[in-house]
């Protein structure tokens, strides 16, 4: 096992540890964080009884995205978890509609096996605020971006 110098104020050497990875050289960790919130300059919270939709990502040419999971949460006007049923749709342009899930406050979804999104296709999120309050929301999507070229 090789030894590596650590620099000033640190031990003279330490063992260099290489952690294993489950990704192949053609793959990269991919994640997107989506935020709907109120800031000093703008109010991007989702209005009561409304549905907010946006394009999250379009897979670039020469790649495919393997979607592994999603986490979503919604909070109310007093920065407390939204105590109402909300809903999320995850939509892929091809093969089509991916998921429709009700949740209260927060939820985590896992895709086993991974959901493939081919090059040139897009992922959309629709968030349904079914409460009478303005809702702040975050959605975190995780996956693996894989090159399809040799």
């Amino acid at each position, binding site marked *: 096992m090789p030894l590596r110098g650590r620099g000033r104020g640190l031990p003279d050497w330490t063992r260099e540890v290489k952690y294993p990875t489950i990704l192949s050289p053609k793959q990269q960790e991919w994640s997107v964080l989506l935020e709907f919130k109120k800031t000093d300059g703008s109010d991007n919270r989702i209005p009561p009884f409304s549905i907010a939709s*946006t394009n*999250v990502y379009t897979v670039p040419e020469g790649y495919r995205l393997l979607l592994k999971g999603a986490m979503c949460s919604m909070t109310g006007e007093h920065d407390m978890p939204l105590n109402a049923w909300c809903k999320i749709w995850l939509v892929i342009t*091809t093969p089509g509609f991916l998921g429709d899930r009700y949740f209260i406050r927060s939820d985590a979804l896992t895709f086993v096996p991974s959901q493939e999104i081919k090059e040139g296709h897009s992922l959309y999120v629709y968030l349904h605020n079914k409460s009478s309050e303005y809702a702040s929301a975050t959605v975190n999507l995780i996956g693996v971006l894989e090159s399809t070229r040799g």
Partner: protein
Amino acid sequence: MKCNVRLSIDGELAHEEEKEVTLFKSEKEAWKDMTEKVSGGA
């Protein structure tokens, strides 16, 4: 209305932007929009 989108690749922030948000008042309207996206491709 907009939302903030942060893309990370291999744990590093790769891209950040504000994206346009479409608001719907009913699930019927949203469903129509969704089916158009699905049938129309990207």
